[in-house]
């Protein structure tokens, strides 16, 4: 069992579980008054960045794309960057479009 937990995939999994706990905690109300929505905006942006870091870890370690040809690595990273940037951009400036 200890041998299993020593594998990189297990260390990464532990990190993902902790990141989920952190996201859940960040998503709780922390007594920020509702007349300061900009504070929530930083938290929300952070939550999305954490989520896409988790996604990259899942792709690299669980889906084993770290050993895949460069093209597949680039497509996956491209998806992560595009979708993450689009979400955060629309979240901040969406209505202005």
């Amino acid at each position, binding site marked *: 069992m200890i041998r*299993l937990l020593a*594998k990189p*995939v*297990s260390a990464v*999994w532990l990190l*993902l*579980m902790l990141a*989920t*706990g952190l*996201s*859940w905690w*960040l*998503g*709780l109300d922390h007594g920020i008054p509702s007349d300061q*929505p900009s504070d*929530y905006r930083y*938290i*929300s942006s952070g*939550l*999305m960045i*954490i*989520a*896409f870091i*988790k*996604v990259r870890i*899942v*792709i690299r*370690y*669980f*889906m*084993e*794309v770290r*050993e*895949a*040809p*460069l093209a*597949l690595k680039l*497509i996956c990273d491209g*998806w992560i960057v*595009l*979708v993450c940037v*689009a*979400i955060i951009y*629309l*979240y901040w400036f*969406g*209505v202005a*479009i």
Partner: protein
Amino acid sequence: MNSADCFSAVEREAEIKPHVPGEVGIWVFILGDMLIFGLFFIVFVYYRGLSVELYSQSQATLNKNYGAINTLFLLASSWFVAMAVDDMRNKTVKLAPVFLPLAMLCGLGFGVVKIIEYREKISAGITITSNDFYMYYYIFTGLHFLHVLIGMGVLVFLWHRARLAVTQADVRDGAVIEKDMVLIESGASYWHMVDLLWIVLFPLLYLMK
């Protein structure tokens, strides 16, 4: 050559030879699915920006704990599957017949929480037609749930192959045939994608204020 040299030689070979995990076809499907869900995420955030108040009020009725527990279920499930694949690739096939049912159990846990959550919402009178937020909530989580159900079928298939490999192991000195490994990696990659999509859906629907 000592064992450390052997290990580094194997590692070097793995570094030199890139390897697509599973069939190329399954990756076309996975990337297509990711593209569609990526568009879903973007559409959701855009429309959220047009009526932030409505989305925030509706989101406040969702139970964050359910979302978080389900993320943990899928992550645990993915770990079991990754370990099972590793086990079969190493041709030991000791863990896979145990870890794949455990992965299914986590998937089942996800399903149970999801059904409890849907029941609570529906009994509170919240349905797909209540407002735009709930429309996206039901469509996105519903489609994702469909992926989970298909994934459960995939896990049953992987379990079947793992058990078959155990019986074959006696005959072929632990050799799991190459074709099987491609199928197993394909199924595992699909299951990890189901996990990946939920990792984004959770903050997007439950947490982003």
